């Protein structure tokens, strides 16, 4: 018998807007031929933030956190999703 609990986790992905140059992503893309990998057009690097709530996952509040702090809307877009954790 396992004790039942839910992980109240919301995942926020933050990405630079497409029009903002991502030199770090370009550096990664430029290194790929050294791995013998061809055919990659572009690499862009973002951040993944996992937020664990004490009670139920609250995507609304996560969205507020993302909008006010995690992402800068001037240069970044974000997505918010509730992650199905192990029960």
């Amino acid at each position, binding site marked *: 018998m396992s004790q039942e609990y839910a992980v109240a986790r919301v995942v926020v992905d933050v990405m630079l807007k497409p029009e903002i140059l991502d*030199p*770090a992503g370009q550096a990664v893309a430029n290194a790929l031929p050294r791995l013998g990998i061809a055919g990659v057009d572009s690499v862009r690097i973002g951040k993944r933030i996992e937020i664990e709530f004490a009670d139920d996952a609250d995507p609304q509040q996560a969205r507020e956190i993302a909008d006010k702090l*995690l992402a*800068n809307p001037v240069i970044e877009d974000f997505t918010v999703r509730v992650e199905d954790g192990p029960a």
Partner: protein
Amino acid sequence: MRVGVVTFPGSLDDGDARRAVRLGGAEDIALWHNDPDLRRVDAVVLPGGFSYGDYLRCGAIARFSPVMQSVVAGAKAGLPVLGICNGFQILCEAHLLPGALVRNAHLHFRNRDQLVRVESTASAWTSQYTPGQELLLPVKNGEGRYVADVATLDELEASGRVVARYIRGNPNGSQRDIAAIRNEAGNVVGIMPHPEHAVEALTGPSTDGLGLFTSVLAHLSAAGAMT
């Protein structure tokens, strides 16, 4: 005149900024990130460094510090505020200035003496310069590339809010070579190079930076004379 300099955890240039304030002829007042009290200052400098470790994004966490709530309210009421380097990043994060500062296009930290051209003297911090004047100031940043959407850039240009531009080389890939901008009212200025490191012949490449600190005194004296 009392000019406050904020120290955040991770600030590096607060000491030099306070020295520049003194050399400019004002009394330097220490302000603390965790204290909303601005101690009756007449102007505020947000210095360079790595506030809160630059975690998440440069300036993102500093924006929510207690002192910044007072700085934002003051700036909206006309308090002169100068953000240098990390301070510029904080002003953008706090939406006191438009745009953002992101990773240098070439990914290298740039540390060198850099020429900039003064584009606007219509601010609280640049009135003692002449338009077109060239200043030699140290730059030292890894995330100093100014970006904004085209409409914002056009608006900044059209309204004379580009305060200084890099000349003879752009150290970080800033759009339109922008080194410094101001808000609409002219009391808030953000600058990426370091005027506080160019105030004495002994330690700086020039004394060209002193003008920002004397300009704010002239601005405050003129404002005081009018009231």
